């Protein structure tokens, strides 16, 4: 038979456990609701033209390339673990973290990445281009 002290101890522990579980649930719901929104990057038409004239250039997390009438933007995030790929000396792109390789148009050629580099959706808005990833 448990004493009054034991009973109160169990009660405090049970209440504490319930409060902890409730707090964890609230935190879980808050974290779930904090999913980042799709990112948009605005590129000025002038910068896009300059990038295309140079044969392609980095713009933030994107690599912008031609043709001028329908520019394309590749995400520079490696599809393996998200490291920023760099232009490789041998052409295309190389991931500095685990050695994945991609061609200039973003197709995967080697390394642990399973997919090609993502292409951003480019949309003309007035004098600018908006890239959505």
């Amino acid at each position, binding site marked *: 038979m448990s004493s009054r002290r034991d009973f109160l101890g169990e009660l405090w522990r049970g209440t504490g456990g319930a409060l902890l579980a409730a707090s964890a649930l609230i935190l879980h719901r808050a974290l*779930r609701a904090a999913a980042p929104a799709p990112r948009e990057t605005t590129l000025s038409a002038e910068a896009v033209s300059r990038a295309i004239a140079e044969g392609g250039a980095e713009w933030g997390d994107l690599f912008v390339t031609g043709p001028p009438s329908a520019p394309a933007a590749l995400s520079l995030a490696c599809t393996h*673990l*998200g490291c920023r790929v760099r232009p490789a000396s041998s052409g295309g792109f190389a991931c500095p*973290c*685990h050695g994945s390789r991609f061609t200039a148009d973003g197709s995967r050629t080697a390394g642990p990445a399973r997919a090609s580099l993502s292409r951003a959706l480019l949309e003309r808005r007035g004098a600018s281009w908006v890239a959505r990833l």
Partner: protein
Amino acid sequence: MGGSALTEAPPGGARSPSGDLGRLAFGFLAVSALSGLALVPFFSPAHALESLERLHDGMPWGFFLRALHAYSSFGLLVTTVAHLVQVLARRTERQLSAGAWWRSVLLFPLTFLALLSGFVLRGDAAAAEALPVWSRIAETVPFLGPELQRLLLGVIPGDVGAISLHHAGTFTFLLWLITAEHGRRLVPDARSLVLAGLVSAALAGAVPLTLGPPPGASPSGAAQILLGPWYLLGLQGALVDLPVPSAWLAPLLLVLLLGFVRGADGRARRLLLVLAGAWVAAWVGFTARILLLAR
């Protein structure tokens, strides 16, 4: 925990080498925490690399303070591993209760998390790449991945504010709490603290640390690989060949292997230790793998 229990000799006895290493690990933890506290006024999560460059180049002894923090953290990792090896070799793990043993085993992933979060706070090119890697690894944890990723890394992509709080607060607090329980002391003894401080200071003075290039800079070397921190090269190498979830499955496996050692006898204990040894050998192999790839 009573006041006398906080200062009594740790399990293993005062002359036990494993006890000495454990106390030294506590000393390194204290030096790391104190030097980290001293770094707080100079560090800005929003301008991580810039603030550390200013500390390095513009403050008297700034480079030394940061190196002291880093070397004491490395000392914590090395002495903790050495302490575990001696405990297992001397079969003294049963001096701890089962619960305390499991919590002590958790010191390993916690130490790695503390060190990795410190590495990310450097804000240079290699640190900037570690952030998305950590984020993607956390996302692959079943059921809780995205929530765990946001809890550890914050909800603002690329921002290290949450990590800096975890580094200085959560991880340090948990490390201290479990270490204090493990060693049955609230603070390290004076000899361990002084010894850890002297070793860290000697290394900080003799082998100054540098910061890497800013984020986005291309790595040097033909293979164009940015090497992560030395203690995580095994993980970096493993991720070249193994699926991404192995980054959390493998540490979990090691924690389970070590955790179950305490309750195992005879052949079962030997099997667990052989498997843990194979785990370590694989880690060393993957470290060699990434170093060769980076050449």
